[in-house]
Structures are given as C-alpha cells and as structure tokens.
C-alpha cells in the first residue's frame, strides 16, 4: 500500500525545484570529487571539462527514452509494471548520482534487469542479454557488476508502486458507479496507456502518488473522448471534503501541462554531450578504460593474496 511504503517516505518530493536542487548537488559533488582526485582542470571554468546540470538533464532524459524503447522492444514482451519500475529505478539512481559517475547506458540495462526480478518477471541473464545489441558478454558483466551497486544506491527500497494497477481499480470503479457518464470505459485504454507512457519521461512519479497518476491519466482520456471529466471527479470525490477535490483538479492540470512540456533533446545535441562525457566520466567505472582494468586486477590480486595467507596460516 502506497501510504505506508518506502516510496512515500523516501522517494516523494514536493516540487520540481527540490529535484533540481538534488541533481545539481550531485553534479557539484562529482566535480569536487574529481578535482580532489585529479587536480584542477587546465581551464578556468570547470564546466569546460565537466557537464553542466542542464546537459546532464538532457542526457538522462534521452536515456530514459532509450530505456522505455528498450523495454517495449524486449522479447519476450514484459508487463507494464516492469517498464514503470525500471524507469523509477533509473530516476531514483540519477537523483543522487551524477551521469558522469556511471554512464547511463550501463545503468539502463541494469535497472531493467533488476526490475524484471523485482516484478517477478522470470528471465535468465543469457536470455536477457540476447536483447542487447553488441557485445553480449560485456553487457552481462556490466549488469552483474552494477546490480548490487544499484540496489545499494536505491537504499534497498525495491518495491515500486506503479499506476497500472490503480488504473485497473479506477476503471472497475468507473464501470460500476459512473456508467451513466462514461460508456465503454475499456475504449479509453489506448488513451490512458499513451498518457502513462509519456508520463514515464517526466518526473511525475517522484512528485505524485501512483493513484494520482492513474487519476490524471483517466481524466486525460475522458477529456479526449469527450465525456464529462468534471462529473467524473465529482463522483470520485463525493465523500471527500471539497478541498480534496480542488487539489485533485489542480494536480491533474499540472500533470497535463507536464506532458505537454516534454521535449526530447535533439540528436546532435546528445551526440555532442556524449562526446564531452567521454572526457569527464569516472574512468574507474568505464569497462573499456585502463583504470577499470587495473582496478579489477588489483581486486583479483587481493583475493588471491587472501587465499595464500590462509594457506600459510594453516602451515604453522
């Protein structure tokens, strides 16, 4: 239940300003960490080397889009809850981590893999990486190395409440109590799905409860199908105090505006940002870099040393 969930307790924010602030601080944190490690970049302005918060935003929006498409094209087809959950993980991760720390192209497959597990969509890792274009073995390595890291950054809050079940509930309710104003509620489904799909590319899931998302989706669909959405909300909130109804109307409008305001970054822009990212990303987390390989070797050596130590101890 959402009202007693970790989602409500830890992953809900009151407005977009708070989200922007969090992301900005993770951006500055990363830059400071890198400067402390490698020394100051040659130019005066750090943003000549590192990504601006705005550029970061464009990049993760782009990768949210890619993640959604990846989920949709996935074979076997995944339930909607997996898509919702994986995007929720992605958003949560990049709230407190910079895009420069761990490349989002690594994170999207990891989020999706974890979401499959959590939403009980049983699939093996080999089957999973068959959906990945390019080097599958490498993809497998990336997923398995980053999975635990992701879980840790999610603070082990793995349950995500998605709006999809709430939509079902509201539709049942509509068919039962409001059949006089909305006929054939099932015809609204394509519109609702479209709305929720687009919602995935906004921060709505960090700002509104899943049932509110579902309500906004239905109101959107009801409007589009030329039924009376005002009457719908009146019946839905008939037992509630009037301030709740006005609040509901307001957040529906807010969400509809969010949907309209979605703009995808242009491809050339994304390409440019990715080029810049190659120079400033954390090489420790880049599986193609020399630093990453060195780190892995050190880890290997350490475990071998530990084993040897145990052997010598027993010789005494």
């Amino acid at each position: 239940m959402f009202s007693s969930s970790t989602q409500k307790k830890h992953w809900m924010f009151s407005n977009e300003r708070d989200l922007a602030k969090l992301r900005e601080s993770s951006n500055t944190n990363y830059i400071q960490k890198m400067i402390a490690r490698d020394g100051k970049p040659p130019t005066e302005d750090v943003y000549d080397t590192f990504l601006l918060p705005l550029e970061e935003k464009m990049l993760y929006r782009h990768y949210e889009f890619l993640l959604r498409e990846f989920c949709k094209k996935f074979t076997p087809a995944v339930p909607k809850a997996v898509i919702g959950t994986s995007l929720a993980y992605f958003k949560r991760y990049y709230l407190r981590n910079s895009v420069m720390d761990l490349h989002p192209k690594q994170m999207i497959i990891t989020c999706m893999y974890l979401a499959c597990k959590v939403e009980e969509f049983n699939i093996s890792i080999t089957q999973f990486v068959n959906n990945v274009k390019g080097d599958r073995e490498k993809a497998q390595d990336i997923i398995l190395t980053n999975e635990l890291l992701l879980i840790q950054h999610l603070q082990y809050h793995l349950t995500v409440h998605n709006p999809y079940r709430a939509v079902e509930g509201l539709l049942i309710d509509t068919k039962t109590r409001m059949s006089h104003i909305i006929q054939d509620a099932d015809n609204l489904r394509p519109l609702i799905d479209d709305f929720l799909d687009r919602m995935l590319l906004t921060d709505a899931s960090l700002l509104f409860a899943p049932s509110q998302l579902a309500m906004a989706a239905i109101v959107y669909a009801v409007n589009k199908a030329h039924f009376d959405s005002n009457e719908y909300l009146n019946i839905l909130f008939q037992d509630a105090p009037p301030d709740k109804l006005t609040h509901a109307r307001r957040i529906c409008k807010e969400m509809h505006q969010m949907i309209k305001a979605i703009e995808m970054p242009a491809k050339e822009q994304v390409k440019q940002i990715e080029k810049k990212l190659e120079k400033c990303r954390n090489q420790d987390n880049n599986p193609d870099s020399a630093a990453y390989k060195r780190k892995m070797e050190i880890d290997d050596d350490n475990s071998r040393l530990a084993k040897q130590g145990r052997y010598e101890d027993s010789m005494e």
Partner: protein
Amino acid sequence: MDDIACPRCKTTKFRNPALKLMVNQCGHPLCEKCVEIVFIKGSGNCTTCNVLLRRNGFRFQVFDDPIVEKELDIRKKVLKDFNAREEDFATLREYNDYLEMVEDIVFKLTNNIEVDATRRKIDQYKKDNKSMINKNRGRQTKDDILVERLLEEEKMSSDLRVDQQKREDLERKKALLKEKEDLIDELMFSDLSAAQIVALHDKQKQELLEKEEQEAKERSRPATAFSTGIKLGSKGSEFLPVKKAAEAPPYEYKPLIIDIMGPPAPTVEELEDFGYLNHIRGAEEQEKAGGFESKIACERAIQSALCGLYFGIDGN
C-alpha cells in the same frame, strides 16, 4: 540422516550405518576410512579446502555441524591466551567488552574473516599481557572454585544420608527382634489368653509402623537444593534468579488503522453488493483451488486506486 555423508567417498549414513565422520582444525568432515587413505603418510591436505593437516589432529565429529567443531577448537586455543578474570578488570563494563572481543576473535577465525589482522591482534595481545597470561595460567577461576565447593558439599551430604540409612536399618532390625522376644516372653509368663496377647501385640506393631511411616514422610519433605547444588529458595546465594521486570500496564488492544490517504474504499461485502465484481474476470477453477477469489484482486485494485489520492495536500 541422509545429510550425513563423507564429501570424499560420498558414503552416507544411510548406506553405511557404521559411518563415522572426523574433523580436523579446518572444520571439514571426512569419514574414518578416507582419513586412513588420505593421511596414510601422517599428514596431507584437506580434500575440501586444501589446507595442510596432520593425521593425529583428527577426532570424531560430535556435533552435526562441523563448523561448531572448528569453533570449539579455535576457542580452546584462543582461551589459552585470553585467560583474564573478572577480577582483572576495574568495571564490569570493561570485562564485558573484553569478553565481546574474545567472541569477536573466535568468530572471525572460524569464518575466515580478516584472519591475518586477527592473528596479528592476538600476537599483540600476547605480547602486551605476557605476565598476566602466565600468572593466570595456573590460577583457578571463580567458577572452578565454586564447582569444586559444590561437588564437595554434595559428596558430604550423600555420605551423611548413607550413614543415617544404615543406622536406621540397624535400629529397625533390633526393634523387630525385641518385639518377637517380648511376645514369646509374654506368652510364657502372662495370665491373659494367647489370642488376647497376639491381638495386643498386633496393635502395638501397627502403631509402630504408623509412626515410622510418619517419620519417613517428614524426612521426604521437599528438597532444598537442585541436583546441581543450587539452593532452593535460599537467599543470599550467588545464583540469584533474574529480577522480575517492572510491572507493566496490561496490554491494551488498539484496532489497526491504516491511513490510505484517499477516499474510503468499499468493503469486501460492498464489492459484491454494488456490482464491482461484474466488471472483472472471474477466477478460474485452478485459481479457486489455491484459495484465490476474484474479489481479492478486485479489492486490491480498488484499494490501490484510492490509496494516495489525497497525497500532497497539507504538506505531506
């Protein structure tokens, strides 16, 4: 029973009831025969962890879990050096911290965690406390003294009992003999008829028996000590019972109230009465067999649709 098996020759307790597992310091079990084969030269490597072992280090496994055996081994070794007493510490707190440290070391060595560091710690401790360890080595602990005293007391009391028993038996025999003589004397010299005399004696005998019984009853009053020597009900003993927790006010039932942050959801009965169930798929036969009914899904969908609709009002 089937679980008990030799990891090397795979013989199980089921197939060979005479199977006896042995363990060495690494804690990995091996059956008696395999020990003979592998350690024919007197020493060899553990088949499981490849650690060098001596044959005479093997002993029969007493506990089901071989790790327990290993732990006991390690504990014995560690306690040889960590033999400080409660008297050696200024406060109980310090003593408890010390005990905690010892447990920590034993645990780490048993589970192969930071073995090197732990061994270094032990060596350091040995160096630091050399004189105290040597001093304590010969000293009896408080527990030893107590156990010795209890044993002594028990022996004394049992000696006393045996002695008393002997004396009583002797007296009873004497009394019986005397009675018989009295009877014969009276039959010889008394003026009363033989039948009367016998009846009188029978009565006396009865009285004697009754008295004895009463005495026996008195003797067998409730014991004042357990077989372990702990005094029953005596105050001032070193084994005070755990103090009773302060009387808490009796438990008060409070019904569980879940704030669903939304309009009240219909109850299960209402789902049926208002026709909500007409709008969802009925449960299949197989699902019903598993205890699943369509109203469960219906209730869940409706609850998640309504839960959280008020989210975001008045600042929560």
